[in-house]
C-alpha cells in the first residue's frame, strides 16, 4: 500500500478528475491522459513490486500441481480487487485467513496417498523430497536453514507420532510457509530478477500457477539469464496447455465475468437461472477466450467480434439449444459478437429482474475504452424505475438524459447500453422486452477517445466491429493486460511500459499472444526495483 494518504487532498483530486470526466464539453478523460508528461515517454521509473500473496486460484492450482490433490479455490479466503483485478497486496492475512491455510493444508495431507513418499528414518529419501517438492513449493532450492527447520520438524513429529504423520506435518509446514504463500523476490545482478524469480513471475502471469520442475531447471541452468532465453521460454510457455488458464484468468478479470456466479435473478421471470447455469456461463467465457487465443484467430479483433462461443449442455440453454457435448457453437453474426455478447458479461450488466443500460454502457466505457466514470453523488435518488407494462427501457430511463444532475454521466453510459437491449438479464436473445414492447437496440456512442468511434449504431455486432477497429480500444486492452501481468495498476511513471505493450499489440495486427509475450519480456517485467527497508 504505497502512497497511503489520509483523505482530504487525495479525495478531492479523484473527485475532481471523475467529475471532469462526465461534464461537457471536453468529454471523458482517458486513463492515459490524466497526468502531466505522459506523452514524453522518457526513461522508465518502475515502482517497487510489493510482496504478493498467491490468489485463491493460484493457491488452488499450485497446491494441486504440487501434491496431485484436487483443491477448490474457496478453501482459502477471497482476494480483494482493484479495477477488477485480484489484488493480494492490499490486506494482511488475519486470524480467519491463517486458520483457513492451516485447515486447507491438513485437508490436503489427509488425501496425500503416495503422492509424497513416507521416508521415516531414510535421510536420502527426505533429502529427495526437499529437493523436489521443497524446491517446487518455494520456487527455488531451499537454503540450508530452511532445510534444517523442515528436517527438524520431521524428526520431532516422528518422535511422538507415526512416519506418515511426520510426512504430513512436513507438507503442512511447506504449504503454510511464507516462501510458498508469498512471492518473495530476490534480486540477481544489475537489478534483474534472478532466474528463479523470473520463472515465478512468468509462471503466475502466463499459467496462473507456480513454476513446474522443468521451468525451475531452466532457471537453474541459466536459461533465463539472457533476453533470448527469456523470449524462447515465453514462447514455449504460451504453447503449454496451462497458458489457457492464464488467458482465461486475464479475460475474466478484465471483463469482471467471474462475478456471474454470485448473481441472483428473479425466480419468477427467470426460472431457469440456478447455480449450475451461472457457473456454466462463467466457464463459457473462459473457454471462449482460450479458444480465440489458442485455437482461433488469436486476435483482439476476434475476441471482440467472433460470431461463435464455446459451450456445453448447461450453457447452451441460454441459446435455446440442446447439446450433448462441450465445443464451439456458431452463432448468428447479426445477433452476437465476441466478448460483449457473452452471457456472463450481459448478465453481469443487469439487475435481478431487468437489464441495466447503465451497467452495460459502463462496461464498454471502463473496460473496453479505459474511461472510468465516478460513482453517483450521495444525495442523488438512484432508485430504479419499476418495470412497466407499457413503457420501454428507453422510456423508463428518459430522466437520465433529461435531468441535468444525471445526464452529465449517464449520456456517456445509457445510450451505449441501449444497444444491448436485445439481451435479457441472463444474456438470452429477446425480440421484445418483458412489457411486450419490441426491442429497439439503437445505440449511440459519444465522447470516445477517438472520434471514429462516435456516432449511432444498431445492436452490439455493429458496435463491436467499430470497437475492434479502434486504436484506443487496442491501447486500453494492452493497459489491462499490463495490469493483470503486474497484478497492480501501472502508475503514470510507468506509461512507457504500457506504451510498449500497446505498440506490440498494434504491430502484430492485434495478436494477443504477441502482446502477452511482449509484456513478459519487457524490462518492466523482468527487472526489479529495490525498495528502501
Amino acid at each position: 500500500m504505497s502512497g497511503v494518504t489520509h483523505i482530504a487532498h487525495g479525495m478531492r483530486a479523484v473527485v475532481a478528475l471523475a467529475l471532469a470526466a462526465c461534464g461537457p464539453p471536453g468529454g471523458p478523460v482517458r486513463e492515459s491522459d490524466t497526468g502531466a508528461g505522459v506523452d514524453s515517454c522518457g526513461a522508465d521509473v518502475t515502482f517497487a513490486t510489493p510482496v504478493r500473496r498467491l490468489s485463491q486460484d493460484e493457491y488452488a492450482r499450485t497446491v494441486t500441481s504440487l501434491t496431485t490433490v484436487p483443491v477448490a479455490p474457496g478453501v482459502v479466503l477471497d482476494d480483494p480487487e482493484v479495477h477488477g483485478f485480484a489484488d493480494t497486496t492490499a490486506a494482511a492475512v488475519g486470524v480467519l485467513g491463517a486458520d483457513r491455510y492451516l485447515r486447507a493444508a491438513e485437508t490436503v495431507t489427509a488425501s496425500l496417498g503416495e503422492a509424497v513418499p513416507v521416508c521415516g528414518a531414510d535421510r536420502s529419501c527426505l533429502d529427495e523430497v526437499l529437493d523436489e517438492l521443497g524446491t517446487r513449493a518455494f520456487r527455488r532450492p531451499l537454503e540450508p536453514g530452511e532445510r534444517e527447520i523442515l528436517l527438524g520438524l520431521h524428526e520431532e513429529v516422528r518422535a511422538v507420532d507415526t512416519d506418515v504423520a511426520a510426512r504430513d506435518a512436513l507438507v503442512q509446514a511447506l504449504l503454510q510457509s511464507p516462501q510458498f504463500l508469498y512471492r518473495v523476490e530476490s534480486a540477481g545482478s544489475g537489478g534483474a530478477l534472478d532466474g528463479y524469480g523470473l520463472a515465478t513471475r512468468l509462471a503466475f502471469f502466463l499459467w496462473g500457477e507456480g513454476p513446474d520442475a522443468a521451468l525451475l531447471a531452466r532457471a537453474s541452468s541459466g536459461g533465463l539469464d539472457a533476453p533470448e532465453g527469456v523470449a524462447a521460454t515465453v514462447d514455449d510457455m504460451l504453447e503449454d496447455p496451462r497458458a489457457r488458464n492464464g488467458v482465461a484468468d486475464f479475460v475474466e478479470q478484465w471483463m469482471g465475468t467471474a462475478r456471474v456466479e454470485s448473481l441472483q435473478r428473479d425466480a419468477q421471470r427467470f426460472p431457469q437461472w440456478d447455480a449450475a447455469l451461472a457457473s456454466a456461463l462463467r466457464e463459457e467465457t473462459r473457454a471462449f477466450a482460450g479458444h480465440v487465443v489458442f485455437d482461433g484467430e488469436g486476435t483482439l479483433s476476434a475476441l471482440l467480434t467472433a460470431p461463435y462461443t464455446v459451450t456445453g449442455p448447461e450453457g447452451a440453454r441460454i441459446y435455446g439449444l440442446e447439446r450433448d457435448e462441450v465445443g464451439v457453437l456458431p452463432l448468428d453474426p447479426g445477433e452476437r459478437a465476441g466478448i460483449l455478447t457473452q452471457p456472463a458479461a450481459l448478465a453481469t450488466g443487469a439487475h435481478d429482474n431487468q437489464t441495466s443500460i447503465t451497467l452495460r454502457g459502463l462496461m464498454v466505457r471502463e473496460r473496453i475504452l479505459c474511461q472510468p466514470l465516478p460513482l453517483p453523488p450521495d444525495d442523488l435518488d438512484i432508485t430504479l424505475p419499476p418495470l412497466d407494462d407499457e413503457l420501454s427501457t428507453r422510456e423508463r430511463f428518459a430522466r437520465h438524459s433529461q435531468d441535468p444532475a444525471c445526464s452529465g454521466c449517464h449520456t456517456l453510459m445509457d445510450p451505449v447500453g441501449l444497444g444491448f437491449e436485445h439481451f435479457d438479464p441472463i444474456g438470452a436473445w429477446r425480440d421484445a422486452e418483458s412489457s411486450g414492447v419490441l426491442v429497439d437496440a439503437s445505440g449511440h456512442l459519444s465522447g470516445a477517445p477517438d472520434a471514429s468511434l462516435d456516432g449511432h449504431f444498431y445492436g452490439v455486432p455493429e458496435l463491436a466491429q467499430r470497437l475492434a477497429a479502434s486504436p484506443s480500444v487496442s491501447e486500453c486492452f494492452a493497459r489491462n493486460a499490463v495490469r493483470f501481468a503486474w497484478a497492480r495498476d501501472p502508475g503514470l511513471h510507468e506509461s512507457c511500459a504500457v506504451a510498449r505493450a500497446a505498440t506490440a499489440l498494434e504491430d502484430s495486427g492485434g495478436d494477443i499472444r504477441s502482446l502477452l509475450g511482449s509484456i513478459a519480456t519487457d524490462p518492466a517485467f523482468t527487472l526489479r526495483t529495490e525498495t528502501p527497508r
Partner: protein
Amino acid sequence: MPSFHSTRRSFLRQLGGAAVAPAILPLLPTAAAAGTGFPQRLLVVCHGQGTLVDELLLSDGPGPLELGPILAPLERHRERLLVVQDVDDATNSLDAPYNAHTRCRLHALTAQGMQWAASGDGVAPSSAGGPSIDQYVASRWAGRTPLRSLELGVKVSSLTGAQWLWRGVGQPVTPEADPDVALARLFGDFMGTDPAEVQRRRVRRDLVLDAVQRQFDRVTPSLASEDRQRLLVHQQAIEEVRASLAGAALGDACQVPDLDLGAGSHDDVSAAHARLLAMAFACDLTRVGTLAFGDINAFPWLDVDLPAGWHDAVHAGPDAAPGARQTLITTFAWFSAQLARVLDALDAVPEGSGTLLDNTLVLFANTFSDGSTHSHEGKTYVLAGGAPGLRMDRVVDAVGAPHGELLTSVLNAIGIHDDAFGDRDFCDRALPGVWS
C-alpha cells in the same frame, strides 16, 4: 527451540502500536462484571441497508420504551433494551460523497476517516482509519481467553463482510460464514472420541506452526517495511490460531452446541451463529463477539415480494408502491428478530443468580438511518443485555451527537474508561444520559 519465545516477543515489538501492545503485557486480572463474579462480554450485531426510523418506536422522543413494528420481535427483552435515537455517524463527512454502503460500513464501528491509497492514476479507499470498537476491546482484553474475539457472518464475503470490522489500518477482519467451520474451530479438538488422538493432533499442529513461524522469521526481517508489516500481522494471526487450538474446558454451562442447519438458509445460519456465540462466551473461549450481516438481497423464508431484490426495494422506499412499507417492515424486523435470537441464546445460559445476558452488552448497529436516504445522520442504535450502570428499558435522545460518543459510552459501560473513541476531532466525551 530456545529462540522461539524471544523471537515472538521481538516481532510483537516490531509490530508496535496500541492495538497489539496488550498482547505482550502480563495478563491482567480478569475484569468481572460488578458484583457477579462473571466476566463482562461485548457483542456487536450489525447489518446494512438502514431501516425505517419512524417504524422503530411507537412514541416519539425520550420516555418509556414502546416498541414499534420493526423492533417488536424484541418485546420479550424490552426491559433489557436501551434505544439511543438521533446519533450521527459524523466522521462520514470526511469521506463523502464516496459510495455510501462502503463508506458507512468503514465508519460505523470505527468512528474514523477512511484511508486512501494510490491506485494507478488516482486514489481509492484502502482501509478503515482505525480499529472497530469490537477489535479495540479485543485488543484491550487480549490474553484473557484462548480466542481474542469471534466474528461470525451471514452472507458475508471478504469484500463486504470485512468492511465492518478492522483490527487496525490495513487489517480487515473477515467473519466466518460457515457455522460448521466455526464449530470445528471452537470445539473441534473436543469432538474426537479418542483423547490420545486429540492430544497427538494438538502436538502435531503445534510443531507444524513452530516450523512455519521459524520460516517466517527467516523471511520477514529482510523485507521492505510495508511488506514486513503485513507478514508480521500474518505471524501474529498464526499465534492466535495456535492459542485458540488449546480450546476450553467443557462442563456445566459449557457444552458443544447442537447446530441444526436445516436447509442452510440465511435464517438457519443466523440461528446457528447465535448458539455458537453464546457457547463461545459460556465456555469463556472469548469475551468479544460479532455477528455481521452482509449483502442479503432476498428473503425466501419470509412472506415478502421482492421482484427487484431487497436492495432496490430499500432504495425505492416505503411509499414507492402499495405494500412497500409492510415489505420493508417485515425485512427490517427480521434483523431485530436475529438480535432477539442472540439475546435468547445468551439468556438461556445460567450464570450465578442470573444469566449470561446479564453480563453481556450487545450493540446493535446499522449502516444508515433510513435505508432509502443512505444517510448517516439520525441513526438509532440499540444497546441490549447488561453492563454495570446502564439503565435500560428506555429511550435516550442523543440530539445528533457524533457516534464516537456512543461508542465511548459502550467502552465505559464494560469497564474500559477511555475518555473518547475514534477521531478526537469528532468526539471528546461519552454520551450523556445513558447512565442511571
